[in-house]
C-alpha cells in the first residue's frame, strides 16, 4: 500500500454520513434564513499546488492526504456554514502537481485563481516551492496556509497572506536544549556537539541558531561543518567529529544525504550519543533503509500521530484504512490547515478573501496538531514535539504528557545494536 492509491484529486463529497469533526463544529448554529440572501455558490473553492513528483515528491505525498481527508470530513458534515448565504456549503478542493518546479507552481496557482476562483490556497512542501507560491498568494491577495517548511526568513518579508501552523527554526533551535537539560541529569549530558550544516538558507538559519544557543544552555559546539546538498561522501566531517570527541550530532540533511551520512558514520565507527536530525528521518522509510543504524535518532517533525488531540484518532483510522499505517508526520499539519481555514471562513461569515485572511489571523482553536494561534508574521504558535526512532518505529517522546514512549539516551554504539 502506497500513497499511489490516494483518493481522487478533485474531492467533492456531498453530505452522506454526518459525522462532525470537532474542529468543523460550527461556532454559531444556523438560524432560519433572513429576508434576502444572495444565491449561494455551489462550493467553496480551495486550491493546492503540491509537489507530487520531483525532488519534493516524498513530502508532497504526505501533505496531500491530509488536505483530502480534512475536506472529506468537513463535507461529510455538510460543509462549512457561511453566514452570508445562511447555509452550509461544501468545500471543493482542486489539487495540481507542480513537479517540484517553482515556475510550474506559479502557473498552477494562477490557474486556480483564474479558473477555479479559489478563496484560499493550501501550500505544497519545501521552502523552494513556498518561496514562489507564497509570493503569488500575496500578489493575488489570496490567503495561503502552508506547512512542511521550517524556514523562518520567509515570514520576515512582511507578507500578509501567508500563514504557517508549523514549528519554525527558532523553536527547533531552542527546544532541543531545553529538552536535553530537562531529561538528562547534569554530567551525563552530551555537551560536545557536532553540527553538520547544509549550505542552504534554512541550513544557515537553523544551524546558526543552534550554534548561537548552545553556550546559553551549557553546550559546546566542537565541530561545525558545511556541505552542499547531494554530497556522497561525508567521511571527512565524520572523522573530524570523531576526533573532536563530539557526543551529539545536529543536522538537517535531505533524505539521501542523511542516509549516506549515517551509513558512513556506522562504517567509520562514530556513534553520537544523541542525534537530532531534522528532515531525513521524518519518512517511514528511514527505518527500513538503515535498519538499526537509523535507531535512536530524534526529530522535530511538527507533529506525530500519537498526539492526544481531538480528531487524531479518526485521522489515523482513516489513514490506516487507506495506507496501512498511522498518519504520516506531515499529514496532521496538512489536516490542520483545512481545519483552520474552515473555522476562519465560518467566523468570517463570508467568502471574501480579505475577510477570511483576517479571520485566519485571529485564529484561536483546537486542531489535530493541538491549539493554534498565529503571530503577526504569520508563524503559528504550535506544539513542537520531539520524535525518536525506537525499534523501527517513530515514537513521540516529548512533551511528556503526549509521549508514546520514553526518551532513550544514550544511544548505544552502532556495532552493539
Amino acid at each position: 500500500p502506497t500513497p499511489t492509491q490516494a483518493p481522487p484529486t478533485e474531492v467533492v463529497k456531498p453530505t452522506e454520513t454526518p459525522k462532525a469533526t470537532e474542529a468543523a463544529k460550527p461556532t454559531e448554529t444556523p438560524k432560519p434564513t433572513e429576508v434576502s440572501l444572495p444565491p449561494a455558490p455551489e462550493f467553496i473553492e480551495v486550491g493546492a499546488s503540491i509537489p507530487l513528483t520531483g525532488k519534493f515528491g516524498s513530502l508532497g505525498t504526505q501533505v496531500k492526504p491530509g488536505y483530502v481527508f480534512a475536506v472529506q470530513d468537513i463535507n461529510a458534515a455538510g460543509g462549512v456554514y457561511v453566514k452570508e448565504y445562511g447555509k452550509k456549503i461544501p468545500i471543493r478542493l482542486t489539487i495540481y502537481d507542480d513537479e517540484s518546479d517553482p515556475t510550474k507552481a506559479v502557473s498552477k496557482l494562477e490557474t486556480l485563481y483564474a479558473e477555479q476562483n479559489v478563496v484560499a490556497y493550501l501550500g505544497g512542501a519545501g521552502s523552494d516551492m513556498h518561496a514562489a507560491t507564497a509570493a503569488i498568494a500575496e500578489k493575488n491577495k489570496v490567503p495561503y496556509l502552508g506547512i512542511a517548511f521550517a524556514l523562518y526568513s520567509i515570514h520576515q518579508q512582511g507578507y500578509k497572506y501567508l500563514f504557517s501552523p508549523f514549528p519554525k527554526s527558532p523553536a527547533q533551535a531552542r527546544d532541543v536544549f531545553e529538552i536535553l537539560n530537562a531529561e538528562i541529569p547534569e554530567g551525563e549530558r552530551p555537551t560536545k556537539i557536532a553540527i553538520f550544516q547544509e549550505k542552504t538558507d534554512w541550513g544557515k538559519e537553523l544551524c546558526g541558531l543552534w550554534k548561537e544557543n548552545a553556550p546559553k544552555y551549557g553546550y559546546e559546539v566542537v565541530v561545525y561543518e558545511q556541505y552542499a546538498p547531494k554530497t556522497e561522501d561525508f567521511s571527512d566531517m565524520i572523522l573530524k567529529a570523531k576526533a573532536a570527541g563530539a557526543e551529539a550530532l545536529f543536522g538537517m540533511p535531505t533524505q539521501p544525504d542523511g542516509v549516506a551520512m549515517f551509513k558512513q558514520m556506522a562504517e567509520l565507527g562514530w556513534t553520537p550519543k544523541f542525534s537530532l536530525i531534522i528532515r531525513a528521518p521524518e519518512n517511514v522509510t528511514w527505518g527500513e533503509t538503515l535498519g538499526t543504524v537509523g535507531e535512536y535518532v530524534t526529530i522535530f517533525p511538527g507533529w506525530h500521530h500519537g498526539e492526544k488531540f481531538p480528531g487524531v484518532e479518526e485521522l489515523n483510522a482513516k489513514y490506516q484504512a487507506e495506507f496501512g499505517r498511522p498518519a504520516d508526520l506531515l499529514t496532521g499539519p496538512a489536516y490542520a490547515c483545512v481545519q483552520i481555514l474552515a473555522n476562519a471562513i465560518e467566523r468570517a461569515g463570508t467568502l471574501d478573501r480579505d475577510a477570511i485572511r483576517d479571520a485566519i489571523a485571529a485564529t484561536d482553536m483546537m486542531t489535530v496538531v493541538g491549539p493554534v494561534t498565529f503571530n503577526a508574521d504569520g508563524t503559528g504558535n504550535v506544539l513542537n514535539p520531539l520524535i525518536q526512532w525506537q525499534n523501527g518505529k517513530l515514537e513521540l517522546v516529548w512533551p511528556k504528557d503526549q509521549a508514546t514512549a520514553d526518551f532513550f539516551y544514550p544511544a548505544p554504539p552502532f556495532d552493539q545494536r
Partner: protein
Amino acid sequence: MFVPLAQSLVFGLLVGALYGLAAVGLSLVFGVTKFLNVAHGELLMLGGYASFWAFTLRGVDPFLTLPLTMVFLLVIGVVLYKLLFAHMVKLTEEAKIQNTLLVGFGLSLILQNVALRLWTADTRGITTSYSRMAFTFLGVRFPIVRVASLGIALIALFALDLFLRRTYTGKALRATVENWEAATLMGIDIQRVYLLSFVMGAALAGAAGCLVSVGYSIDPGMGMSWTLKGLIVMVLGGLGSFMGTFVGGIVLGVTESATGYFLTLTYREVVGLVLFILVLVFRPQGLFGTKER
C-alpha cells in the same frame, strides 16, 4: 594527518569506482551505437530498486542479487531497444545522437514516474547486517561493503575488457563502432551488435544501481545526477577506452574527497568539475581518449 587523509581517499576511491561503473555503461553504448542514452541514470535507478525489492521482500543479500539485477536490466534493455532504439540504427551519427537524446529524455520521464508510482518518492536503500563492519589497516578503516563494491566493479570491468579484446563478438562490436556498413560486409549482424552493446550497457547500469543502493541510497529522481556524472566521467576518461573511463571515475571521486579534506565540502563537486575542465583544456580528447579523426 595521515589517517584522515587516507581515510578520505579510501572513500573517494570507492565513490569513484561507482562513477566509473556508471560511466562505462554509458560509454559502451555511446561508443558502439552512438546512442546517447540519457535515461542511463534511470536504468541505474531500476537496478537499485530491483535489489532493494529482493532485499526487503525476500531478504536476499544484495551481493547475491547483483547478477539477477543485471539479468533483469538486460531484459529491460532488450525491450527498450526493440521498442525504441532499433529504429535509429541506420541514421547518421548526428541524427542518432539527437534522436536518442529525445527518446532518452521521454524515457527518463516515464521511468521516473513509473518508479514513483511503484515505490513512492521516498528515499530507500539497503543496509545489511554487515554494513557497519570494516577492517582496519594502518588505522584506516575499510568498510567491507565498499571494498566489495570496488572489487565487483573491477571484476565487471576486466570481464568487459577481455570480452571486447579477445572474443570475436567483442571485435565485431568494435568494428561496428567504426563503420557499420563495412561491418555488415564482414557478415556481422549489426542489429545484434547494437542490441548486445545496448543491453550490456543496461546490465552495467543495473550492477551500478545495486551497488548504489547498498553504499548510498536510491529514489525515483536520482537518475539525472547519475547520468550527468556518467557523461562527465565518460568524457574525462576519453571515448574509446573503457579502462580509461573507469580510471576517470576514480580520479574524479578521489579529487572530490581530497577537496573535502583540504578545502571544503561545499565546493567538492566544483573542484572536481574544474579539474575536468582543466583536463579538457590540455587534452581535448580526454585522459585516455584517442584523438578524433
